């Protein structure tokens, strides 16, 4: 039985705008295991991003409890969550969120400056095959390259978990596959627990497990008996 990295119990999230209440998560129980690559699948508004934000310590649950290993995230304040993110989590976003005024190397350095035991920015970039583009600014790179820089930035701190929110959402199929390959290689070679959010069903084939969301709840969980390499995926 593999080690449990994340565990949630009855996690609920309600957004209260004053006029209307929107329930984004309605009681989610979930476990993620060490070293696995899980794909969280579901239409937009199904609650998968909200859950990822809560797992990543970016947001608080309205109700329910969340553990990262033995650490209960729901009991942490802002300072504790900052510490947790700094030490344990790597993020990859749909729109890359690179700092436009920093080069690829410097964007990675943002993380290595504050992490406890980081790789060098160069090593992290080499990991995603961008060692030849290190001194380019985001505006000088393609979308796929920018997303790979974002992945390099996320893994540079050697995080235990890598949380990816629609990493290929802004990319065409061909460049998206390069990004997925980078993610898979990180998962295989470094053993980083990786959660990928997508509404692109094709991507599910590369996962160990697929968790389907609908209306703020987990609809079902599937295990892939055989995984498909990213290069064989297309959409």
């Amino acid at each position, binding site marked *: 039985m593999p080690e449990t990295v994340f565990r949630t119990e009855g996690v609920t999230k309600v957004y209260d705008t004053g006029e209307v209440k929107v329930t984004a998560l309605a009681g989610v129980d979930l476990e993620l295991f060490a070293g696995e690559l899980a794909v969280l699948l579901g239409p937009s508004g199904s609650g998968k991003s909200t859950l990822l934000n809560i797992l990543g*310590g*970016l947001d608080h649950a309205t109700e329910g409890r969340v553990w990262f290993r033995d650490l209960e995230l729901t009991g942490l304040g802002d300072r504790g969550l900052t*510490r947790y*993110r*700094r030490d344990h989590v790597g993020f990859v976003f749909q729109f890359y969120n690179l700092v436009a*005024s*920093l080069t690829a190397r*410097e964007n990675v350095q*943002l*993380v290595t400056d504050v992490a406890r035991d980081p790789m060098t920015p160069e090593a992290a970039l080499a990991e995603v095959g961008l060692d030849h583009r290190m001194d380019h600014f985001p505006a000088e790179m393609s979308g796929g390259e920018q997303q790979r820089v974002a992945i390099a930035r996320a893994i540079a701190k050697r995080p235990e978990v890598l949380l990816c929110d629609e990493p290929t959402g802004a990319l065409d199929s061909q460049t998206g596959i390069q990004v997925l390959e980078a993610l898979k290689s990180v998962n295989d070679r470094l053993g980083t627990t990786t959660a990928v959010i997508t509404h692109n069903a094709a991507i599910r084939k590369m996962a160990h497990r697929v968790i389907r969301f609908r209306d703020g709840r987990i609809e079902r969980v599937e295990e892939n008996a055989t995984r498909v390499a990213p290069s064989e995926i297309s959409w």
Partner: protein
Amino acid sequence: MDALDRKLLRDFRRLWAQALAIALVLGCGVAILMTSFGMQTALEETRAAYYERNRFADVFGDARRAPLSLMRDIREIPGVRAAQARVSEHAVLDIPGRMETVTGRLLSLPGEGGGGLNVPVVRSGRLPAPGAADEVAVNEPFARANGLQPGDSFAANLNGRKRSLTLTGTLLSPEFIYTIGPGGMMPDNETFGILWMPRAALAAAFDMEGAFNNVALDLGPHSNERAVIDRLNDLLDPYGGLGAYGRDKQVSHSFVDAEITQLRTTAMILPPVFFGITAFLVGMVLGRIIALERSEIGLLKAIGYSDVEICIHYLMLAGLIAVAGTLIGWTAGTWLSRELAQLYARFFDFPYLIYSVSYTAYAVSGALALLSAAAGATRSALRAARMAPAVAMAPPAPPRFKRTVLDRALAAMRLSQPVMMILRSLMRWPVRSALTTLGLSLAVAVLVASSFFSDALDEILDTAFHQANRQDAMLMFTPDVPETALARVADLPGVLRAEGQQFHAAILRHGHLEKDTPIEARRPGTDLSRIIDGAGRVVTAPPGGLLLSRRLADQLEARPGDVIEVEFMGAHNETHAVRVAGLVTQYFGLGAYMDLGTLNRLLGQAPRITTANLLLDDTKLPALHAELKRTPKLSGLVMIDRMRRAFRDTIRENVTIMTTVYIAIAVMITVGVAYNGARIQLSERARELASLRILGFTRGEVSFILVGESMLIAVLAQPLGWLLGAAISKALAEGSSSDLYAIPLVLEPAGFARASLVVLGAALASALIVRRRLDRLDLVDVMKTRE
């Protein structure tokens, strides 16, 4: 270098135009604060050091002739540490090569043994030998202005006897930092000088052996100056005491004081305006940057940067702007201080220059610059720090526009969509619109206030020189002479008209309040020297009563009809009760006026005068001066026309410099506010405007929205600016008023118009510069970028 620091520097470089616009505004504040505060402390410290080293006296007293034996009693007044008896006289001089009559004030040098007060500094040559009868030392500026060197000789009419005096050296004294002759309005070193002679020689020439007519006292640290002055008056009264006074009434001291007050007022009123605008601009720009960098902030938080680190990151950006502003301000301030020091060197005579601005002035102005930038940045930086990481990652919700009553009104007016966009945007961000309006209105206010100054000076000059004092020259007599002497004055060559006037030293008392000020008396209907009120009307002192300037009346809390106690000083030491017959608004001095007949009847004497006002035929000036140089009893001559010209030139020069500086300041404020405002608008609206272009709007139509909003705010700022300008002018007028002069609140429509023109012009230029960016906008690129 950390990646975050590198981002900071790159952001700063990317924002250079906006940062520079803010830094220039901040720099103005720093420069003005540093200069006014720095020069104020420099002047105070220089003067204090000079006074200390050269033992400038604390109290002064004049009498007609008092025996030296009285000095024992004076030294025993409680609180008096040292006292010095002097002989002080006036004389007409004949300087070789100078056609005009020159007047000199003669002072006896402290005797041998030292320990004197008001010790002069020898600048060249030596002091006259104590026993010498014809040796004299003069104040250095006088020697320089007249090309006199030690060893030169000139003639002087001492008490009616013409003597040749030899110059032994040039001096400076703490008594004469600002040297102004009797009746003068500004220093004229060519025609007025200070002459120091050994006591024995001067006493012999003016029949003052064993006597003195001027005394200077040095007081101990905890003495009561008022009590000492009262006691000194009591002692001098039997000998024709003319009223003792403290440093506050000493001419040189009070002029330097007035300058220090002026600097302090400037330091208090202007820099806060600049610091306030800076805080607003930094807040506005940083607010926008943080709105644009929501996702980057979210990213930094996701990576694990703490709230504090993020807050500091944005504060540092404000800090860089502050550093740039401070450096600009220090550079400009150093230059400005040097210019001001040169100006002071022309009017103030110090033996040494401690005109360097202290490190404190640099430190204080720099610290305040940092504080104001930080104050502006704090709100935005805290907002960045408090942004919840998940929210920061999502795009901001579109600003909520709501339909209000105003909207229905606007709709009813059937305005075009671009006009609606402009108006809605103003209403959507009411605080920002209001603050932008306020910023621009401050630029207008600064200009209104600056033109107020020059208009006020014009008014003062016109009243003083063309309405009140219309004479070409004033002859001064000490002691006074019978009014019949006017006939002889009228016979002098070139004199077209001569009118008499008397200045009588007096102390006015009303209840527990008192003020010593000379009473000016003239015949009704005199035409050359007149009393003019604030509305430009000629006023005559009514027979039997006192006419008081409003400021003097305020100080005495006296109203028309009140009875005032007047103690006449000098030969007639008498006290009379006189009714206040009227009040008059005036700019210069604390005037008290009487009818010449009434005054003489009160004193029970045949009419006497101290001054003759003359109307001259210019072509006969050489003959007149030649004759005056031979006239006994004449203590001084003021060529009003010459003074008028010198005064006007100086004022013109200063006003030109000041106006230029203020226009520059106002343009910088306007550009700082308008440029940043337009840039932020452009950044917020780029997608909107690009969409309009794609929909088929022309460049002109699209830029109308951008330029229109800027200019609408600029126009709205005008009335507020006029009001604020009037308020600042009032504060400046009140802050600059002293016993020496009051500044009238003169506000001309032209001043308001010019202020508006400059600010609207600068605002338009700023908006057009930003418009050029709009023209270069890459439509496809903008639409692709995620907000």
